[in-house]
């Protein structure tokens, strides 16, 4: 049995965190923090055991590149692997009864 959930109309709702001006400020904040972590590298040497690790801001570019690669890989695999949610419904229930949602 589904619980009763109070609902409101999102269009009439206003929250300071979701206002465009706040979102814009958060983007600036994120940018500043990112820049800071990269600039900090000048003051803090990041020692690594392996050659790539010695490159400037290794964590930053490696993390970014890997994430972009993984999202793209997921996207490509998605074309092949994604099916509608009801894909297994017929066979999961012996082709007889429908499953509960």
């Amino acid at each position: 049995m589904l619980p009763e959930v109070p609902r409101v109309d999102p269009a009439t709702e206003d929250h300071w965190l979701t206002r465009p001006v706040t979102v814009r400020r958060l983007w600036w904040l994120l940018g500043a923090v990112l820049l800071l972590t990269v600039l900090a590298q000048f003051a803090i040497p990041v020692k690594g055991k392996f050659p790539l690790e010695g490159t400037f801001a290794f964590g930053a570019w490696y993390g970014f590149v890997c994430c972009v690669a993984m999202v793209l890989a997921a996207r490509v695999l998605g074309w092949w692997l994604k099916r509608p949610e009801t894909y297994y419904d017929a066979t999961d229930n012996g082709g007889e009864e429908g499953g509960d949602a």
Partner: protein
Amino acid sequence: MPDFLPPAVWLLAGAVAVAMTRGGLRSVILLLTPLATLWAAWQVPDGVVLTATYLEHAAELVEGSPVRRLFATIFCIMAFVGGLYAYRTASGTELAAALAYAAGAVGVCFAGDLLVLFLYWEVMAIFSTVVVFCGATGRARAAGIRYAVIHFLGGVILMVGIESVMVGTGSVDIRALSANNLGTWMVLIGLLVNAAAPPLSAWLADAYPEASPTGSVFLSAFTTKTAVLTLILLFPGEPVLIGVGLFMVFYGIIYALLENDARRILAYSIVNQVGFMVTAVGIGTETALNGAAAHAFAHIIYKALLFMSAGVVVYRTGLNRCSDLGGLFRTMPLTCVCGIIGALAISSFPLTSGFTTKTLISEGAAEQGMAAVYYLLAAASAGVFLHAGIKFPWFVFFQKDSGLRPKDAPWNMGLAMVLFAAACIGLGIYPDPLYALLPYPEDADFYTPGKVLFYLQLLLFSGLAFFLMLPLMRRTLTLSLDVDWLWRRALPVAWYAVADGLVAIRDKARKDLAAARRVLGDWFAEHWGGEGLFARSWPISTTALWIAALLAAYVLVYYL
């Protein structure tokens, strides 16, 4: 008479008591039993301490060692906090099954030989299936049956392996084996089934999200982590585990990125996290094994915390899909903050438990000069932040406003989440008590400016990639195919095709037979019918004539 009972017996007795009681008494038993078991677990000294003879086999019922105690400790803590989270909403059956399931896990921790281990292994399989069934929907029942089939199959493979090892070596002691013959391979495969290793990873993300909001919290903790413990005990340094673990790590990330169901995202990330531990066991050095054990400990806490947070959302809204949720931070601040703490911990953000434990695994790879493994683990750490660290809280609590205004967590669920959120941060700031429990001496300190800066760069730039690529991660009302397609789709479809073919053959045969019968019937009717040659009545004179002719023929033949 032994001075103590096997710790698992406490939990089993508690499970029986919970099944037979109701109300306040049941809740008290539910909460006290794991604490009593925790105390009992710490009374177990190192070495084999309890044996029993059964069919001339001296079964080693209880054996202690630091790593066994470590896992038993976190299993008991999990059973306690899980019980606190669940006791007001879960059914009595689910609570009793959860305790029995925990008993199986604690039993595996202290199993002195492979046969005792197998016994508790099956206890886990049975009662975890019951927990899945307690989801009480058609989907939960179907997923529970698939879950049970895979686990009993894994159990059979494990048993065949154990028998083979017993015949080959004459011993079922739990000691380091190496996968170099069929028997040890079967043991390894049997264990890996429970670790959700490929190709049978799909059972986890299939079954766990179909359990009740409270059931999936229990499920997230025990099965895969007992598999990690048994791998540490039986196959430390087995090279094949490095490849298996790395595959699991990326499998979890990719499938979680494709997923829309909030709890299924978390389920895939279990496979991802267990992949880190399996890789560590494969590396097999003291640092790496410490890393596997410490990470399992921390993982149980933050993963349960994430499932608790998702569970509160499901409990309050009845909704699982990210595409139906969003904007819940407004009315569920506690659940949101606890979810974020769990998400930061799983991403190994500095000051959380993931940072002080998972880093041990990377360190283990670096010490061995395994550059490729090290780079892949770093990439995977970024991927964890991507798929679980940001994706889960973002789509559930933020993104668009769904207009839903559910109440925050009930007090007991909130308290359970706060306890585990505190543990995530506590172990992140001060990991020494956990390090003291590890199997090998550990004095690592990862809070060097260089290390912290590296992880901050890695994770924050992953966050940037997430928000820049959001349009590519639109939620779709889809599921993702996995190996279980073979038995959920291909086999049934093939079976229906064969069945349809057989039915067609039968129908054709029936039709042909009917036609044949008609032709034959006409022929019979013609000759044996009322006026047929062979059925009509003959005059007596004709009969006498025929008899005379036959007798004459007989006499003739006789004299010839």
